[in-house]
C-alpha cells in the first residue's frame, strides 16, 4: 500500500518478527514410517536434543503442526494418506524429506514405492542418508530455519 519509508520499515520488521517466531517453535507432525523414524526419535531424545529448538513435541494431529518430516519409505498404499495428512496441515507448513527412500526412492527402485515423496507433496529440504544420522537431520532442520529467516522459503 504505502511505499513511504516508515511504512515499509514497519512491515519488514513485522515480517522478520513473524519469520523469527515461526522458526523458533516449529512443531513437527509425527510421520515416521520406517527406519528413519527411529533416527528421528533419537534426534528428539536426550542425546541429540531437538528440545533446544522447541521442537521436541511431535504433535499427533497434523492440524496443530507446522513441519512434516517424512521419515521413511512411502509405499503406493501410503501415498494418498500422506497427501491427506499434508492437506490437513494449516499454512504455513514445510516438508522435510528425510532419508534416501523419501527423497528419491532410495535403494528400492521398484513397483512398491513412490520414487521420491516430492511426487506427492512439495518438499523444502532433502536430507540424504540411509538412515541419516541425527546430526544430518539436525543440519537439515537448521538449514530450514536459516532459509525461513532469510525469507528464501515463504511457506
Amino acid at each position, binding site marked *: 500500500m504505502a511505499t513511504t519509508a516508515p511504512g515499509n520499515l514497519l512491515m519488514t520488521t513485522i515480517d522478520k518478527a513473524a519469520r523469527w517466531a515461526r522458526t523458533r517453535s516449529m512443531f513437527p507432525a509425527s510421520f515416521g514410517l520406517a527406519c528413519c523414524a527411529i533416527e528421528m526419535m533419537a534426534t528428539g531424545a536426550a542425546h541429540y536434543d531437538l528440545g533446544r529448538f522447541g521442537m521436541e513435541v511431535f504433535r499427533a494431529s497434523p492440524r496443530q503442526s507446522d513441519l512434516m518430516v517424512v521419515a521413511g519409505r512411502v509405499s*503406493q*498404499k501410503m501415498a494418498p494418506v500422506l497427501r491427506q495428512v499434508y492437506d490437513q496441515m494449516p499454512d504455513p507448513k514445510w516438508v522435510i524429506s528425510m532419508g534416501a527412500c523419501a527423497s*528419491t*526412492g532410495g535403494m528400492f*527402485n*521398484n*513397483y512398491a514405492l513412490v*520414487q521420491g515423496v*516430492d511426487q506427492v507433496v512439495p518438499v523444502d529440504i532433502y536430507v540424504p542418508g540411509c538412515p541419516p544420522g541425527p546430526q544430518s537431520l539436525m543440519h537439515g532442520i537448521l538449514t530450514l530455519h536459516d532459509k525461513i529467516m532469510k525469507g528464501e522459503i515463504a511457506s
Partner: protein
Amino acid sequence: MTDETGAVETEEAVEVAERPLPDNEVLRGLFEPFEDVGWEDSRGQDVARVPNERWLVFATAAKDAGFEMCVDVTAVDWMRQRPDRFEVVANLLSMQHRLRLRMITTAPRQEPTVASLVPVWPGVNFPEREAYDMFGVVFDGHPDLTRILMPDEWEGHPLRKDFGVGTVPVQFKESHKVS
C-alpha cells in the same frame, strides 16, 4: 488290483527299495501311511513332497503327529522350468519333538489352487493372504482371501516372474543451488 502272485511280489519289493524314509521316529511314523508323499533331504532338512489333492490331509496328519505350529506358508514361481508353475511351501515346527518339516506341493499355471491350511493352523491366515496377493495362488477354504500388502485395486501379482520390477529411470529434477 489283483495280479498273479509273482507280479505282486516284485511290485512290493521294488516299492520297499525305492521309497526313502526319514530316520527320525516321529517323521517315519508320519510318512509311512502316505504312499504318494515323497520324502527328501534338502541340505539336512526334511522335506515332504505332497500332491496337491493331499495337502490338507497330510497337514492334519502332521498336526496330529506333533507339529503344533505352522511357521510360514509361501510360494515360489518356477515359470517355465517345471511342469507345474507354482510351488506352495509350508514350514512346520514341532516344539515337543524339536523337529522341523517342510511341506511342498505344486499348483498348475492355469487357475492355481491349493487347499487352505487355516482349519488346521489358524495362524497361516496372513501368510496365505500374502501368497495370494503376491502370486495369485488361490487358497480354497480361506476365510478372507483378499489383498493384504498391495492396495485393494492393484492389478497383477508382483512376485510372479513375468511381473516386472517396475524400475523407474532416475529423473534429474531442476533444483535451486544451495549456497
